[in-house]
């Protein structure tokens, strides 16, 4: 095909151009350069923190800060090949799903050697530090936020179909999974099937899996926690009984449910309120939401920050991390400006008192969230989460909850799929 050949030629040429331009950028971009601190991120929050807070407080830094941003789903793909080459960026931001991969890789710097971070992280929540520590307990990454998960529900729908509407009453109904499913049935019956308890299996997935005590992989062996089995059964039960809409997670129908009267509630973490619920709920449902703990304690997401071992600007990088994750003045301003639940216990206690969120009908969500953090366990976080969570969803949860496969087949397919991507993991297939 002539077109193909032409394509190859153009491809080769453009690769050359890209490579040569990368080469130039690379010189200043990734190896620390002479006087610029390179920060790789997948979230635009860090730009906000650096430009509007850090550089305001420290306007006389004698080096530049370069922030390089990639979409979350591209981030690992671009960073992975650099790890271990000595060309890593100075500061690396990591999402919960893949943070452990880098934290346990041995290519991140021990943060406890920096006095400011060591001192400052004393009042960082334990679970945040647990995720940020290597297996031997060395802290190599810290975070500025905590992301406890909750259940958000519609006040008016609760009033109409459940007869109760205040958070404590609703929480009493759904404080365990049996109660959760029973409440779902009550809503379905009272609304003639018009209203679903939740929009998607994702509203169950994170709440269930976030409660596990063990991660997916322990000593190179695949561990399927009882909660994962319970999740499968609950998802199937709710789907068969039409208690959930079964919209694909984070799809159009999933978000549409936030502004119409079809969905009773969503399981979301702190950031889910600001980034998903408020923008999608909009005028239509603002003020009609309330927040409760729901049936389980879990956390979902969050951003950890670390310094690469190869960085030549470790002191400068540590200064930034100390500021972003432990500086109490900054964290307090950040909490007040954004409503984010920050990772520092002292600050949270400080600001929790006088919060009132209009979107939640004046509820003090800050205090609610703050109470949940102490119960959070992070022992289940592993370097495999990003991949194995997806595999569990694709090969077990989705097909099983839709009734496409038998239980044993679902589990078998899941084990097989893990083995395919991690041949060295013992998955328990004969």
């Amino acid at each position: 095909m002539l077109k193909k050949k032409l394509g190859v030629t153009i491809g080769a040429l453009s690769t050359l151009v890209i490579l040569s331009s990368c080469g130039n950028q690379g010189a200043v971009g990734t190896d620390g350069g002479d006087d610029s601190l390179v920060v790789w991120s997948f979230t635009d929050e860090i730009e906000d923190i650096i430009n509007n807070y850090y550089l305001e407080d420290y306007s006389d830094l004698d080096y530049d800060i370069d922030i390089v941003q990639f979409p979350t789903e591209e981030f690992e793909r671009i960073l992975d090949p650099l790890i271990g080459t000595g060309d890593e960026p100075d500061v690396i931001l990591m999402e919960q799903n893949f943070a452990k991969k880098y934290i346990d890789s041995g290519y991140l710097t021990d943060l406890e050697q920096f006095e400011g971070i060591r001192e400052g992280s004393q009042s960082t929540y334990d679970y945040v530090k647990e995720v940020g520590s290597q297996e031997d307990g060395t802290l190599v990454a810290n975070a500025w936020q905590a992301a406890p998960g909750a259940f958000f529900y519609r006040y008016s729908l609760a009033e109409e179909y459940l007869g109760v509407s205040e958070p404590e009453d609703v929480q009493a109904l759904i404080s365990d999974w049996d109660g959760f499913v029973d409440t779902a049935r009550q809503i379905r019956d009272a609304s003639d099937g018009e209203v679903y308890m939740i929009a998607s299996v994702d509203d169950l997935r994170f709440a269930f899996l976030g409660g596990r005590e063990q991660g997916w992989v322990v000593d190179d062996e695949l561990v399927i926690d009882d909660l994962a089995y319970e999740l499968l059964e609950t998802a199937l039960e709710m789907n068969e009984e039409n208690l959930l809409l079964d919209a694909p997670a984070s799809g159009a129908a999933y978000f549409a449910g936030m502004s119409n009267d079809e969905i009773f509630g969503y399981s979301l973490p702190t950031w889910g309120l600001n980034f998903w619920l408020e923008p999608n709920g909009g005028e239509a449902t603002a003020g009609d939401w309330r927040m409760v703990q729901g049936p389980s304690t879990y956390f979902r997401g969050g951003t950890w920050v670390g310094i690469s071992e190869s960085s030549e600007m470790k002191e400068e990088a540590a200064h930034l991390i100390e500021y972003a994750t432990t500086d109490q003045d900054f964290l307090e301003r950040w909490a007040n400006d954004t409503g984010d639940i920050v990772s520092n216990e002292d600050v949270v206690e400080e600001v929790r008192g006088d919060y009132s969120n209009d979107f939640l009908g004046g509820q003090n969500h800050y205090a609610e969230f703050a109470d949940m953090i102490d119960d959070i366990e992070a022992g289940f976080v592993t370097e495999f989460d990003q991949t194995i969570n997806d595999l569990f969803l694709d090969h077990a949860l989705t097909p099983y909850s839709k009734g496409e496969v038998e239980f044993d087949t679902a589990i078998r397919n899941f084990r097989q799929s893990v083995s395919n991507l991690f041949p060295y993991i013992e998955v328990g297939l004969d």
Partner: protein
Amino acid sequence: MQATTEQSGKKRKLAKIKNTNKFGYWFILPFFIVFAGFNLYPTLYTLYLAFVDISGFNFEGNFIGFQNFSYLVTNNLFLQASYNTMLLWVINFIPQIGLALLLAYWFTNYQLKLRAQGFFKSVFYFPNIITAASVAVIFFTLFDYPRGPVNMILMQTGVLEAPFDFFRSAFATRSIVAFIQFWMWYGQTSIVLTAGILSIDKSLYEAAVIDGATAWQTFRRITLPLLKPITLYVLITSLVGGLQMFDIPRLLTDGGPNNSVETLMTYIFRQAIEGGRNVSIAAAASVYLLILTIILSAIIFFLIRDKSEREA
């Protein structure tokens, strides 16, 4: 000559031959540099990777012989991916060449005298210009569940009672992927075939008409046999392209549901980039893909070529 020179006792000056041909090499040098850097070296490096055990953040591997290769032949996903790749190619290529042949025949048939040929040729070619990413998004949206346009139409016309989740059905997903491949490439194929038909000597057709041959006979006895070299070309290029099918399955459902559109290329990509980043297994799979491509191309080549030579 030399003898004469010596006889006369004088030293004669001889003209030097200037080789201007060597400049040609300078002109083709850029290609070889690019080829060596972007094609030859990666190929050789892949071969090396296939025999070691590099994965994750490791850079150094141990030589492990053919272990990666033997792992693959017993791996269910790799075998499934090979099967899917062949299946998807076959079910997209048969209708593709069929329709392309029909269109090429219509375009070149002087009796039909189709109007606005240029327009239609462009329209048929358009899908090929759209990037695969956009096409994947378009089809994903069209077949969306539960309220995509296709589901809406099928329900309003009474074909379906309840919405159908196309991307949860292996059959539907495979059909959609094959259809997209077919839809994107039939225009290209029909243009190549049109060119092939136009290059056939007109006098053969005139002779056939004079001898009273029907249109079908002309097509069957003149066009098809003489189109063989072009058909061979289309077959092999399409096969090579089909074996590397990647973008549409990857973007549409990422191999799902239940690995039904996992192709060899998505498998290789997944091994190298996702999960344990088993670069060496991906490399071994690439070597298999290369061998498979060579074998299948050779089979097609000999099947078609030998016949035509024997008949001639």
